[in-house]
């Protein structure tokens, strides 16, 4: 954990990890769990049954017409189907597959770079690229930004990919051009990877090494000169972000004629040492940690993602998902604790906020559950969710949590209003 510097007059600078570790390949697991999104009122998947045989790379969905699917990462049989609830109450169906040992590849994947192929096979590719914006007739997407720098501290997944899998990224860029018709593809990399990035054929932009400069909103503002307006998604600026790993996976899929089922992730132990591993999607987190010689004890924290934006999870039985860029393990003594102290108005959050939100006022409104006032008067919608305000808060208020809760409550209100109309 990076502590406050002795001289507090200057803002703290949190720097990204710029040195990707080499990747250790993990053996294929005996069992994988895949989390299939189900609609809010949907029952258990109708087309899947316990005992069904599945092949590696096979597309599994709840019903033939459903848009949500997972790609099996092993060959074997379905051993369990169970409901699962995610962190923000999304419902999933957890499909457990016992692996048979040998990989038997499914042959549904068609080697045509079309949007249909992308929608059908790549949404579950490592890095979870989203193609929904391309199929939305109300949206035009002109630019694709490939994030060659990881979004959070400590993680080096995308940087590893840019450094070592340049050829795959290059074929991914060509495939993306055919799939989407986007006329501008930009890759953002830290300065030390510019040379590798130029070989990919995308337009190279250098991103600074200081958090949160590689978050999409910051990249849009600093490197593409376009501000994402409050309440808009990044797609509304005619731009889609994808991680370098996702682009490389798309490239590999077309050259190998089968979808990619492995994920690179950065594992950070209690001592802060980082290492990169490549595991099958769906591998149990506990197995990944075991392979890295990290043992867990009670009251530890296991964070999926990075230390500033990740999600702490409650069980090591949960699987590695396509979007899981890292696993950070924290000892109880090292984990940051929050308090219920009020804001003392010291102004540290205002000084560090990258989008100039009056966080001191915002948090007062959020604490009082005045979410609409928080949005209308104190710029809740402008927040880019970097977590720095909580990081510097002297009262240790869970500001970031209040902000996410406020956004979530507002989204529920909007859904309810839309349902009433």
């Amino acid at each position, binding site marked *: *954990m990076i502590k*406050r510097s002795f001289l507090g*007059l200057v803002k703290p600078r949190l720097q990204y990890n710029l040195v990707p570790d080499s990747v250790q390949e993990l053996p294929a697991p005996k069992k994988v769990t895949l989390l299939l999104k189900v609609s809010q009122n949907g029952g258990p998947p109708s087309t899947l049954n316990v005992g069904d045989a599945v092949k590696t790379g096979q597309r599994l969905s709840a019903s033939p017409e459903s848009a949500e699917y997972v790609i099996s990462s092993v060959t074997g049989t379905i051993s369990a189907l169970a409901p699962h609830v995610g962190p923000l109450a999304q419902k999933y169906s957890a499909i457990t597959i016992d692996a048979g040992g040998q990989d038997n590849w499914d042959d549904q994947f068609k080697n045509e770079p079309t949007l249909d192929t992308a929608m059908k096979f790549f949404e579950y590719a490592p890095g979870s690229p989203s193609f929904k914006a391309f199929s939305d007739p109300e949206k035009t997407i002109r630019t694709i930004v490939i994030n060659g720098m990881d979004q959070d501290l400590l993680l080096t997944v995308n940087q590893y990919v840019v450094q070592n899998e340049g050829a795959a990224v290059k074929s991914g860029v060509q495939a993306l051009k055919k799939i989407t018709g986007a006329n501008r593809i930009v890759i953002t990399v830290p300065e030390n990877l510019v040379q590798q990035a130029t070989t990919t054929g995308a337009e190279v932009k250098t991103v600074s090494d200081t958090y949160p400069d590689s978050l999409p909103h910051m990249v849009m503002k600093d490197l593409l000169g376009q501000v994402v*307006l*409050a309440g808009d998604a990044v797609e509304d600026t005619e731009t889609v972000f994808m991680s370098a790993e996702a682009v490389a996976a798309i490239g590999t899929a077309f050259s190998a004629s089968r979808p990619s089922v492995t994920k690179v992730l950065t594992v950070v132990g209690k001592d802060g040492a980082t290492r990169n591993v490549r595991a099958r999607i769906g591998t149990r987190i506990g197995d990944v940690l075991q392979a890295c010689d990290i043992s867990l004890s009670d*009251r530890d924290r296991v964070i999926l993602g990075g*230390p500033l934006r990740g999600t702490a999870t409650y069980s090591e039985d949960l699987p590695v998902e396509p979007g899981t860029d890292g696993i950070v393990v924290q000892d109880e003594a090292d984990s940051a604790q929050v308090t219920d102290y009020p804001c*003392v*108005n010291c102004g540290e959050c205002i000084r560090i906020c990258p989008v100039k939100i009056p966080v001191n006022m915002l948090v007062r409104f959020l604490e009082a559950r005045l979410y609409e006032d928080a949005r209308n008067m104190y710029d809740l919608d402008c927040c880019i969710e970097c977590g720095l305000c909580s*990081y510097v808060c002297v009262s240790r208020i869970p500001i970031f949590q209040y902000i996410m809760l406020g956004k979530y409550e507002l989204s529920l209100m909007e859904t309810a209003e839309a349902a009433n109309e």
Partner: protein
Amino acid sequence: MSSQTKLVVAHAPYWHDGSRLSTKNYHIIIAALPAVLMGISQYGAPALAVIAFSMACAMIWELVWSAILKKPAPIGDGSAAVTGLLLGMLMPATAPWWVIALGTFIAIIVGKQIFGGIGFNPLNPPLLALAMLVISFKGIFDFNEALRNYDLGFAMTYPLADLKAFGPGAIAKFSLGDLFMGRQAGAIGSTFGLGLIVGGLYLMLRGYMRWEISLSFLAGVFVTALLFNLSDSSQYAGPMFHLFAGYTLIAAFFLVPEDSSSPANFIPMLIFGLLAGVMTVLVRNIGAYVDGVPFSILLMNLANPLLDKIRPKAIGKVVENA
């Protein structure tokens, strides 16, 4: 999905820079020590008694209040100790015990707790207490009267009182060096300019204080005093005298930048400090009171919520009808 190991979940971020309120308050106490020690060395045991009693009383009032409200006592955060210390530093060494008990009651209960406790006080608690005491018990805060039994080897009259009563001619006996080194009569912790400046610089560099407010306050005092002095030097003292006399320096480094009662945005901080400085000199030069510090800062505290509305436009914010 169950698991043998019980993991602790929480919302992001999982890192913190390690700062805490108690650390901040203890550093404020450390920064105030040079000035306090100078006061104690000058006035001896009575000064020590005032400081110690004031800190103790402030903490006791806070404990009593949290006992009445049946809330956990936030005594460990050091904010009551800081309030008590600062109030003690503003008092003469001869202050009677009941004035201190009353003053700390005003600071902790009236100034802070009835508004909701730490972080909610609209006014600076020690200054509110000082202002009410100065209005109520003029004699105790008349430093000439209070310190008449002391002879410390320098002119034992309160410089600001001399200025008010007899004009700039009467303050020729105070050299700037003497004022700066604490060789002037006054409150326990507010006369030693060098110590206050060292403490203030320490707080600024360590980031425990908002330098914008301090420096703009000093600039406000300096510029206003200079303008008065230029207009009529036979009637108004020079700017350096105003900087080193009375409560100016303790206010600049320990009172004006108090967190809760001052703005947090850049431009409001500058306006806040500057206007407080201007008001201070206005009260001193043409007002009724000898020192304008408590009243000018309290007045600006009231303007704080309004001032803090001047803020930069958040990036991405959509301004309607713009």
